[in-house]
């Protein structure tokens, strides 16, 4: 797989494309910004799901935690949070430019750290579960997060929080958040490109392929799993902070912890693009997001039904994902990864135990 480091042309091409996009397509700035968010979602999901074999249905938890942490920090640095959330509809509270930007900056960092901290703690509880239990358990955590925030008055309960308003024109605002989201996605991609080339990449792949074997070989499986979750949570937390401010308003069930939308999209995008590869999630995110943006309005009213059908179709028919399929079709192009494989894995005769045709890396 091609790496994304300052030495590779991909790095510069991507950087250029990312920065130029809003200039070339100013009307679509927001949509492309959300595309970068989707890429962040899919890349972080893939760390756990595709590379490590732990299919999480609760990653959105860290997104929401980050969003709320940032909001609380942004507001709390200058005002009393409880009073703010109680009175935000009646009184108009003003933030100076300085207050806005420092609050936002510090809040975003706090968001990443807080999510990472939650992940570190959660890892003690959540990694004793395997397979479907892990999926359902993490889903439970995400739903619990939504419900807890929805009943906590200090953070606005079910009504949510109105965030400080961006000081600047709508044009500047669009560009500002676009660049932030692009920047985060870009950093994430470069970081993961490096990360997967280190022992970490081998270790989490080993955990995916056979965790018991890895344990029997003395691998520090718990440490690697914790690190993977913390890394994913960190980026998701910051993404939450950014998106929350971009929206201007946060709410527990649909914006911070959207368990049936973003949370599921991230899985679909990775499955569509190809689990366990660096570019698979990216490709999947692009394809998914574009299709969704184009068809969403046509399916008005029926969107979610279409979504459900899409889930089933992707899950049943797109096992390897686009990149996975490509890697199988043109193995020579992906030199550096394991060479041509003979599909010698016979289908298991017992139900539910068949190995799925994997991708090389």
């Amino acid at each position, binding site marked *: 797989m091609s790496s994304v480091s300052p030495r590779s042309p991909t790095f510069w091409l991507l950087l250029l494309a990312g920065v130029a996009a809003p200039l070339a397509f100013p009307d679509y700035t927001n949509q492309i910004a959300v595309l970068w968010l989707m890429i962040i979602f899919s890349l972080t999901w893939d760390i756990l799901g595709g590379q490590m074999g732990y299919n999480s249905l609760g990653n959105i938890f860290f997104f929401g935690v980050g969003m709320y942490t940032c909001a609380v920090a942004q507001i709390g640095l200058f005002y009393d949070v409880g009073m703010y959330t109680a009175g935000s509809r009646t009184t108009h509270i003003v933030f100076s430019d300085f207050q806005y930007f420092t609050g936002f900056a510090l809040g975003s960092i706090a968001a990443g750290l807080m999510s990472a901290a939650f992940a570190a703690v959660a890892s003690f509880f959540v990694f004793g579960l395997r397979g479907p239990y892990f999926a*359902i358990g993490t889903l439970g955590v995400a739903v619990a997060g939504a419900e807890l925030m929805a009943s906590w008055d200090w953070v606005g309960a079910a009504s949510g929080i109105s965030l400080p308003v961006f000081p600047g024109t709508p044009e500047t605002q669009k560009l500002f958040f676009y660049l932030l989201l692009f920047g985060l996605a870009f950093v994430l991609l470069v970081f993961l490109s490096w990360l997967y080339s280190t022992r970490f990449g081998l270790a989490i792949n080993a955990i995916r392929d056979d965790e018991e074997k890895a344990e029997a070989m003395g691998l520090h499986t718990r440490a690697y799993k914790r690190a993977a979750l913390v890394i994913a949570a960190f980026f998701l937390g910051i993404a939450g902070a950014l998106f929350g401010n971009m929206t201007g308003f946060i709410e527990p069930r649909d914006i911070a912890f959207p368990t049936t939308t973003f949370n599921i999209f991230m899985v679909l995008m990775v499955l569509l693009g190809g689990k366990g590869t660096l570019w698979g999630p990216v490709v999947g995110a692009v394809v998914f997001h574009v299709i969704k943006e184009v068809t969403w309005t046509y399916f008005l009213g029926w969107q979610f039904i279409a979504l459900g059908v899409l889930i089933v179709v992707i899950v049943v028919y797109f096992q390897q994902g686009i990149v996975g399929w490509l890697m199988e079709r043109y193995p020579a192009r992906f030199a550096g990864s394991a060479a041509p494989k003979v599909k010698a894995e016979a289908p298991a005769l017992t139900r539910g135990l068949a190995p799925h045709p994997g991708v090389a890396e």
Partner: protein
Amino acid sequence: MDQVIGNISILESTPIFNLGLLIDGLLIGSIFALAAYGLALVWGVMNVKNLAQGDFIMIGGYLTWSLGKLGIHPLFGVPVAIVVLWCIGFVLYRTVISKVIERDLFTSLLATFGIAIVIQQSINLTFGPDTQSANADLPTWSFADGLITVTATRLIGFVMAVLLALAVILFMKKSRMGQAIRATAQDARAARVLGIDTEKVYQFTFCLNAAICGAAGALVAMVWTVQPFLGTTYSIRLFVVVTAAGFGNLPGVIAAGFGMGVFEQFGGFILGAEFQQALIVLLLLMVLGTRQLQQLRFRQAVQ
């Protein structure tokens, strides 16, 4: 919080209330037990964890409610729901489930989740997001100066649930197909070698489960309420029941179903209705946590 303390003190001061909650819990729990049995069946036989279980129940419920709107007594909803859901189960099995059985477990989980979303949203589009209930127009009995009320509806629901459960259990024990199902659940490969058509067994099991859900749904519509998105809550609820009891342990599953009913009644009373979803999720996390601790003693993970 004060509300919670207040509610607890009511329970303490008026012990008869506890009995009322217990009775209600058992009555409702019977329906949980029935649906949980279906879930455990599909899980044990095909290793498919059906996240759409609650939504199947909702279909049954809405069918019954629609019948009620047409002037037909909801009790007839049970056989109608059984038949309709059986057919739906058949279609779903052929189009989706059969293709994901041999794959890894996450695939089947996601597939059923997709089905769940389709069902929820379809119901929402057709019937709107309001909560509904089918009126059975049956008497209510009071005891102990009105402190305990038992509705005939709930009692009938209980009786029907028990009868249905018994019918299914008897079927599993005595009929050829029932035996084939149990054989396949124990060892699919061996069953195949012995000439059992496991494809048919899987199909039958899935349809049977759908039908069970339909019946449960019809009862739910009479005894409680239905709402397009209530399905998820049921799915989680039933998943908790089956996980807590262990899917192979069918008597345990039934007992846990009853236990869940009682737990929810008490929990709902003490904490208030808005916390229903939160309570169930919390219970899920607790059950998974406890399982982990149990497995830790054997140095294994919860697989």
